[in-house]
């Protein structure tokens, strides 16, 4: 029996490829497999070429492969573009109304048209064919359609059934063994970030649409009533961060999200967060840059930007989740840290994490929402009172005992503007102290993750979503993987420990210069080899395997 199955479904924008990917993932989830879905689409609404790769495995996976078992083609383009991915044993399921190929051809377009349904229903038809080929009972297909297709559900089921039956010739040709695992929630990275934020106490999410961060806003706006939050879509990213900081000043946990271009607009306010000490949590979901770059694809090219954005020296946290659980739990951490230390926290992810779908296992009971340091109401309130750890207690407007004066200027303890050299020095020292305090806090946390063979003297170092492919390749070659979760404060104390004694350190990143590798070298840790990719696409497992094989 095969342990894993990869299905690619392709068509043009408007064919509902995303929906097709989603229903196929649900189908495979229902029969007990771990699922990963990669979505590939250009920045257009109609036409072009969209595809999704759905990989299902008996064990947990965090990445997709180039090679596929089954190709579902809703147009000819899909055949031309993806035939080379097919493994030796393979099957092409195609719409014979529009496409020529060898394999299981059914007139999906005609079947749908004859029932008076729109062409988008072809992807439900394809789901029926796929289930038949995999030998999955039709009742499961029916359940999946019921739970995921809200319009014309009955008609969709009829179409799927007709195609399921007509695919008889290829029935069970990829017979999959049904596993006993319970189905798991399927979520995108952005959905996990959104839910993590809610569990971290988020009450207000503010964002301006920008791929690949937009779906956090969409998801939270759609579910705001059941999640007990409010959402706002303001005039631009400057308005976004300004509004969020106003709300945080008034005591409400907020989060914002954007990609590189929007983050660029926010940087003046990021510096304000540093000076005025306003908890500011920003999701920065990277896509290829510079400038508009390649909007719907992926990159890890904004690490240095996240580390250095904003004028002046101030404390910040940069945290980089690499999978669905990290996206969930580290967003809670991001909110905790922002409020404990009144600093900006950047949650650095990328399109590949944000928009890919994973099987998720969340344990809500594991979540701890830390309380910020609150003013106890004694004496006169001083917003910027100097303390040992650099953190001043919080009070909020509306408190009859406190006058809360927040300032973008250097200021005295009450928040009144100052140009006095001694007070200016003290302001800097307060912020420096906070950097140290945060570092001490991180020393108590897991800041670096290790996978593979911990004894291997060949170490793959990576960050963010790239760890999915890296981890799997490391298993194949019995190597060690080191993944820093935090990039600022940089957990050099942990990294040094894990990299000590390594004979060869190989950095793997999706950018053109090797930003993490450079950061390590600035900190005095040599990286021997760099495997970099900068075509807008993430590493696949098989592609990375080849590259590492050459180095070993």
């Amino acid at each position: 029996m095969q342990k894993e199955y990869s299905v690619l479904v392709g068509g043009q924008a408007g064919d509902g490829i995303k929906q097709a990917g989603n229903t196929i993932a649900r189908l495979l989830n229902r029969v007990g497999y771990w699922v990963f879905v990669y979505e590939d689409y250009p920045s257009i609404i109609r036409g072009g070429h969209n595809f999704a790769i759905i990989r299902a495995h008996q064990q947990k996976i965090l990445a997709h492969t180039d090679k596929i078992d089954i190709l579902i083609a809703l147009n000819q383009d899909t055949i031309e573009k993806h035939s080379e991915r097919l493994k030796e044993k393979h099957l092409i399921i195609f719409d014979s109304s529009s496409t020529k190929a060898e394999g299981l051809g059914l007139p999906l377009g005609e079947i749908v048209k004859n029932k008076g349904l729109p062409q988008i229903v072809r992807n439900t038809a394809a789901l029926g064919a796929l289930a038949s080929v995999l030998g999955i009972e039709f009742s499961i297909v029916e359940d999946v359609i019921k739970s995921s297709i809200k319009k014309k559900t009955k008609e969709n089921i009829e179409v799927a059934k007709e195609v399921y039956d007509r695919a008889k010739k290829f029935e069970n040709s990829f017979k999959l063994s049904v596993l006993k695992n319970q189905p798991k929630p399927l979520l995108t990275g952005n959905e996990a970030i959104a839910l993590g934020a809610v569990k971290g106490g988020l009450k207000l999410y503010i964002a301006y649409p920008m791929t690949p961060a937009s779906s956090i806003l969409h998801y939270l706006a759609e579910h705001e009533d059941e999640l007990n939050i409010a959402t706002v879509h303001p005039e631009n990213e400057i308005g976004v961060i300004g509004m969020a900081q106003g709300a945080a000043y008034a005591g409400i946990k907020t989060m914002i999200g954007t990609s590189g271009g929007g983050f660029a607009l926010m940087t003046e306010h990021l510096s304000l967060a540093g000076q005025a000490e306003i908890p500011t949590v920003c999701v920065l979901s990277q896509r290829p840059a510079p400038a508009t770059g390649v909007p719907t694809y992926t990159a890890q090219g904004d690490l240095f930007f996240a580390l250095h954005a904003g004028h002046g020296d101030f404390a910040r946290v940069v945290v980089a989740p690499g999978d669905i659980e990290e996206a969930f739990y580290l967003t809670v951490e991001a909110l905790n840290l922002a409020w404990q230390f009144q600093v900006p926290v950047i949650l650095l992810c990328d399109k590949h994490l944000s928009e890919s779908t994973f099987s998720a296992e969340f344990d809500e009971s594991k979540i701890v929402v830390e309380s910020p340091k609150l003013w106890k109401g004694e004496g006169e309130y001083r917003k910027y009172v100097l303390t040992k750890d650099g953190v001043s207690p919080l009070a909020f407007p509306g408190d009859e005992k406190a006058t809360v004066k927040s300032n973008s200027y250097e200021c005295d303890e009450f928040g009144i503007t100052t140009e006095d050299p001694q007070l200016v020095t003290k302001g800097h020292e307060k912020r420096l102290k906070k950097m140290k305090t945060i570092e001490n806090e991180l020393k108590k946390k897991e800041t670096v993750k290790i996978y593979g063979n911990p004894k291997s003297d060949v170490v793959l170092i990576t960050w963010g979503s790239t760890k999915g492919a890296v981890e799997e390749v490391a298993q194949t070659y019995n190597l060690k993987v080191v993944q820093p979760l935090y990039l600022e404060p940089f957990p050099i104390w942990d990294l040094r420990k894990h990299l000590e004694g390594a004979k060869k350190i190989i950095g793997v990143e999706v950018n053109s210069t090797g930003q993490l590798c450079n950061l390590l070298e600035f900190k005095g840790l040599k990286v021997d080899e760099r495997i970099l990719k900068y075509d807008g696409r993430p590493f696949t497992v098989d592609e990375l395997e080849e590259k590492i094989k050459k180095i070993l």
Partner: protein
Amino acid sequence: MKIEDLKTYTENTWCPGCGNFGIEFAAKQAFVELINEKKIKREDIVILSGIGCHAKIVDYINVNSFYSLHGRVPAPATGIKIANPELSILGFAGDGDAYGEGLVHLIFAAKRNSDITMVIHNNRNYALTTGQFSPTSPKGFPGRSTPKGSPEPPLNPLELMLVSGATFVARAFTGNPNHLKEIIKQAILHKGFSFIDVLQPCVTYYNTFEFYRKTVYELKDHDSSSREAAMKKVKKWNYLDGEKGKIPIGIFYQVKKPTFEEIILKEKKPYGLPIPSLKKLLKRHNS
């Protein structure tokens, strides 16, 4: 409460005779009266400023404050109001600040009818950066960046606010601080976006005091509920120089509409509600 109770310990650094003093007095007096009339509470007042001469006002008034960035006041002001609708939010901004650097935020705060008040210290030049032309300087203004005279005609901010959807549009003059105080009071009590353009002489770079003294007059027999009537009146003076005619001050327009915060927060206030369990939602993700 007396006006002295709102004083802070810091030294005032505005130029002697600056129009900002009139605005500071009017704002403080408005707060004192509203507090004494029990219409607002001191602890519920939040003032904001941008960057420029005007902005020092937050250091001079002893209430909650948010000294923000150049041009951005309406953004944090709206955020504070969303976070706590009980608060009374008064944003101060300069003409370069609100009509130049951050115009988009001002327009959108008006468009969405956020329940905040914006007081624009309109001295019609950039003073803290030593006298450049601003969005409301008259064409030909000989500022330091335009020694041959500003090439651009001025904006009429009242006209802009009317078309943007502001539900309270007013103009005042610092030389008439009691009138200004009354307008600030009404603006604070107005539910919705209130806008006050305050004509403010800059004694150092653009002293318009005598000019305004001769030309301003208070609106009388004006129907402030009519947008047409308001539009007609705001067009009486277009911030041009060497103006013939008179400059009306007062409330040009005031109507009641649902506020942004009322709409987005609906009946519920999400803040008091507990962190929800995700069980049900996650179940929908695995079926």
